[in-house]
């Protein structure tokens, strides 16, 4: 029992994955944004900041490699480690997520007295995970085509490059929208997390926070009976 009543929510591996994702995606967005908005003062400023047009491209590719490594790391994690498999299972969408969503809206508009009881990951976090999963797959695939266009010129038709470019650009816009709106809200601006939920760094949340936001996980972790029932070793 910890005196401060802190509970570990994220393992070190989880936090490293998040950190790599955070760094690579931020760099990719900044360098990609500069290219997409090259006509605006911000785009020009970013290109200048990134050391010119060609340096911008190099930086984007270095960040892409980092994202790729992160993605492979994550795949290994969810396939080959016990902890990863358990986490992935928690992230799979379930029927309960849909009813949770309805319940949460009812709670917000005052129809329900109590919020829905969320497990380890609420539907809000699952949406985020799966959107990101899809984004990263799309970005890596289209990015590889664009990066190695000289190789793929002999393999793929011309329209495929145009498609990859459009897809890369459109998905990026969607990612930015999603990050700025949803992720920022979930971990920074939402009342229970404001100004920041620090568990991405140290992995710990307060017992009270867990009880408020992930009641079922709280039960599983604090209540020994729940612990026996849960497949999660911690």
């Amino acid at each position, binding site marked *: 029992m910890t005196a401060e009543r802190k509970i570990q929510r994220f393992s070190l591996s989880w936090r490293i994955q998040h950190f790599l994702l955070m760094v690579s995606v931020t760099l990719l967005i900044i360098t990609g944004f500069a*290219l997409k908005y*090259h006509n605006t003062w911000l785009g020009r400023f970013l*290109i200048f900041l990134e050391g*010119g*047009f*060609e340096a911008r491209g190099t930086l984007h590719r270095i960040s892409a490699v980092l994202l790729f490594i992160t993605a492979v790391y994550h795949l290994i994690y969810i396939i080959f480690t016990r902890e990863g498999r358990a986490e992935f299972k928690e992230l799979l969408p379930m029927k309960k997520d849909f009813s949770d969503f309805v319940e949460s*809206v009812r*709670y*917000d*508009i*005052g129809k329900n007295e109590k919020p829905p009881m969320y497990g380890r990951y609420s539907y809000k976090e699952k949406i985020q995970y799966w959107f990101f999963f899809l984004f990263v797959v799309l970005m890596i695939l289209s990015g590889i085509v664009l990066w190695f*266009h*000289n*190789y793929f*010129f*002999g*393999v*793929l*038709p*011309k*329209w*495929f*490059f*145009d*498609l990859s*470019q*459009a*897809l890369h*650009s*459109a*998905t990026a*816009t*969607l990612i930015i*929208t*999603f990050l700025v*709106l*949803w992720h920022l*809200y979930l971990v920074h601006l*939402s*009342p229970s997390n404001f100004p920041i939920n620090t568990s991405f760094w140290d992995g710990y949340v307060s017992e009270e926070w867990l009880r408020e936001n992930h009641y079922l996980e709280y039960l599983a972790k604090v209540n020994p009976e729940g612990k026996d029932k849960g497949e999660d070793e911690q």
Partner: protein
Amino acid sequence: MKVWILIFFVLIANQANSQLKNQRCFVCHGVKNFGIVEQGKFKSLYVSREDFEASVHSKFACVSCHVDVRVIPHLTKPRKIHCLQCHFEGNVVGAPVTAKPEKYKESVHAKAVAKGKNAPDCKDCHTVHYVRKPEDPNSSVYKTRVPELCGGCHQTIKEEYYNSIHWAGIKRGELSSAVCSDCHREHDILPPEDPRSSLNPKNVIGTCDKCHSDVKLMKRVGVPVTNPEAYKESFHGIALKFGVVKAANCASCHGYHDVLPSRDPRSPIHPANLAKTCGKCHPRANENVAKGKFHVLPGEKESGIVYYVYTFFKWFTLIVLIGLFTHIVLDLVGHIRRKRKKASE
């Protein structure tokens, strides 16, 4: 200054009986095979009176320019004259003054002349005695005559140009089509290496763009007008804009003197030739590069699958944006309401 005053007086003195004086000149110079033998070669000294009288200088006396001819017949060879004798700032004879001579001084031609090479100055293009306004179809620099004029020296390039769609346009009577001077400029012709040149890789786009972004003109000649815009948004276009001159510009793929539309089998952008054209920079390019459109704008329906993907994502992003935003607002409103309720209890 002395010379200037002299010119002035000579002009005044000659103005009144200029016709008579010219008539006296044409007694000899109006004879078709009038000439002299110089260094073993026959040199014609014939001046067509008809053509001279149709020129912009018709109202001037021959001696207005040939100021050292005091007696007729003159016994010595008159000095060479220069256009700037009159066409200078502040002249009293009303000779139009423009920045063109100054621009010319910067050009490759002027620099070659200065080095003693055989290169044109004013008279080589504008002629000596028959200068007409460029709009005059009989002018030596009238648009349709420019290729022949430049081709006098640049012969192989002239032949290449005569194969081009631009020349075909001129022949068809589409005078907006490009001749040499439209891309190379008229007086300030600079080498492509010069950053000020209209042919510098960084300026080529603007040079082609001048006509190829003109909606009315392109519609008239049936050429897609969005191509320059699409190019500027492409990787090549953006890279070039930021100084990566190895990136392809218009001329890299389309060629220049003998530019032809993609339907022409001789064109480097004909589907059958694309592999070779792209292959100049992308060594693995093969017939795959011909499968798809070029100058694709994702927002245009003609772009096919690219358009549909782009449009899907556009709406999807908007829906996601609205959906998430609504959810966040709902959450916050609920939070505030519950807080107030708690406070009032």
